[in-house]
């Protein structure tokens, strides 16, 4: 019991979590802002007759559109973008994060077909980042409180720890649920070959990617996702200063980056690959990020002299 309480009572610099906050807000803005110039805001976020979604027939379907007209969609979208910008800048971080979360969730109810897994991952992250001290570093709130953009030296670490749990759950469950035979030897590891034939998602459907390569990447994807289940052990080792844990984590993260870059190149899944990568700084202890930044600075200084 005491160990469990102590686990969630650790403290560390909030820099890793603040970095996730900035990247999540940026990725969401990159996703949402183009809807305006494309003329899709009302199509996606307004109920009928203005938009594609329907709210009738569902009791208590919508808090906001229960009192607002469908024509408010553009104002709600603008408010969501403003809240996200404030959240990313670390301005009234908790309040702006919770406002953004509420609006994002409400707008998602209008047209559930347009709301994908990455949207749920982002909302989970927004909730966590709003409740945890993600605004204690790298933002306006931090600057006002401490006089420095770096912000507080120490804050509770549970937010980052839960973010790692969330990432483990996402990847491990994505692996566990790959029960389609095409992901396994009985299906000749043909899953990614089939996915790359799908004109809805493939960037180059019917392209000339060799079958053997898609088989290898299918196997790699399954191994990568299932091995996410070992990450908690790796973190446990890390806390005990064992190099093996850090090495496993580093290899796993490198594989994750490669997987998402591969998805970005071969598939048209919008912000999914970038959105997932936005959560990756949570894998690193703030001291590791500081050390990496210091190494980069040293390298830059050496090159300029």
């Amino acid at each position, binding site marked *: 019991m005491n160990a469990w309480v102590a686990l969630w009572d650790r403290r560390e610099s909030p820099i890793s979590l603040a970095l996730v906050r900035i990247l999540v807000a940026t990725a969401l803005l990159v996703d949402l802002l183009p809807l305006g110039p494309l003329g899709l805001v009302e199509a996606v976020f307004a109920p009928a007759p203005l938009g594609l979604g329907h709210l009738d027939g569902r009791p208590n379907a919508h808090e906001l559109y229960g009192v607002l007209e469908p024509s408010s969609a553009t104002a709600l979208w603008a408010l969501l973008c403003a809240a996200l910008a404030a959240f990313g800048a670390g301005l009234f971080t908790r309040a702006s994060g919770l406002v953004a979360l509420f609006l994002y*969730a409400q707008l998602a*109810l209008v047209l559930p077909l347009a*709301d994908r897994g990455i949207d749920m991952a982002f909302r989970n992250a927004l909730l966590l980042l709003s409740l945890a001290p993600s605004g204690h570093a790298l933002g306006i709130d931090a600057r006002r409180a401490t006089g420095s953009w770096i912000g507080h030296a120490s804050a509770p670490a549970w937010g980052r720890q839960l973010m790692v749990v969330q990432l483990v759950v*996402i990847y491990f469950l994505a692996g566990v649920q790959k029960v389609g035979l*095409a992901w396994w030897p009985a299906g000749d590891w043909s899953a990614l070959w089939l996915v790359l*034939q799908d*004109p*809805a998602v493939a960037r180059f*459907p019917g392209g000339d990617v060799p079958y053997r390569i898609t088989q290898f990447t299918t196997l790699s994807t399954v191994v990568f996702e299932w091995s996410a289940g070992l990450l908690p052990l790796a973190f446990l080792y890390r806390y005990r200063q064992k190099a093996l844990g850090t090495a496993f984590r580093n290899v796993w993260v490198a594989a994750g980056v490669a997987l998402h870059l591969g998805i970005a190149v071969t598939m048209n899944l919008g912000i999914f690959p970038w959105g997932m990568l936005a959560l990756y700084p949570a894998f690193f202890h703030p001291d590791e990020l500081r050390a990496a930044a210091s190494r980069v600075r040293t390298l830059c200084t050496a090159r300029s002299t």
Partner: protein
Amino acid sequence: MPRLRALLITLALVVYGIAAAPIPPSVKKHEVFSESGRDELRRWVEVLHGVGVETSVKELGGQVLAVGQPLTKARQKLLSPFSPLLRLTGTGQRWGLFAYPDTRPQALVVECEVGDRWRTLFRAGDPEHDWASSRLRHRRIRGVWDGVARRKKPGRAYEALVDRIAAWVEAEEPDCGDVRVSFERSHATAPGVAPDPVRTLHERVREAAP
């Protein structure tokens, strides 16, 4: 305070842990016995036959429904005290990315009538017909047509999308008359396996304004 925090985190882990149970969000008969679903069941029947278990597509599909539906309902019941919070925050734990690769993928096709023939404006995945592709392939709009294409009845969102596409064509393509929207369903197979012929589904025509 640390104890209260640990308690709240434990509660959150339990609730989201139940939500994360690897059970599909819904198990519906039309999905299990869709063309893609039957392809998958057929492959499982062959695998099970190889290890001495005799079953059929119909029997196995029935078992999937018999096991999956009560599990889905049980999870819904367990989560019901927390569902207002989950709904208000839009949070949850459903992470099945390409769990079953679609062997019957569909491509949205938009055509318009020019004179007495149909001109293809957009076909998903076809770089030569990419009219309005930044809108039609936007992940949120793709979700509308890719999500409904495999249903028996594509639903109101699809009908509204067709209306919207017709309005875009009318505004941007003055030479066009009627607008036709449909899906081309292909058959994805491993190399060397002959695919079924391409079929057209859910065809809708919107007449041009007089």
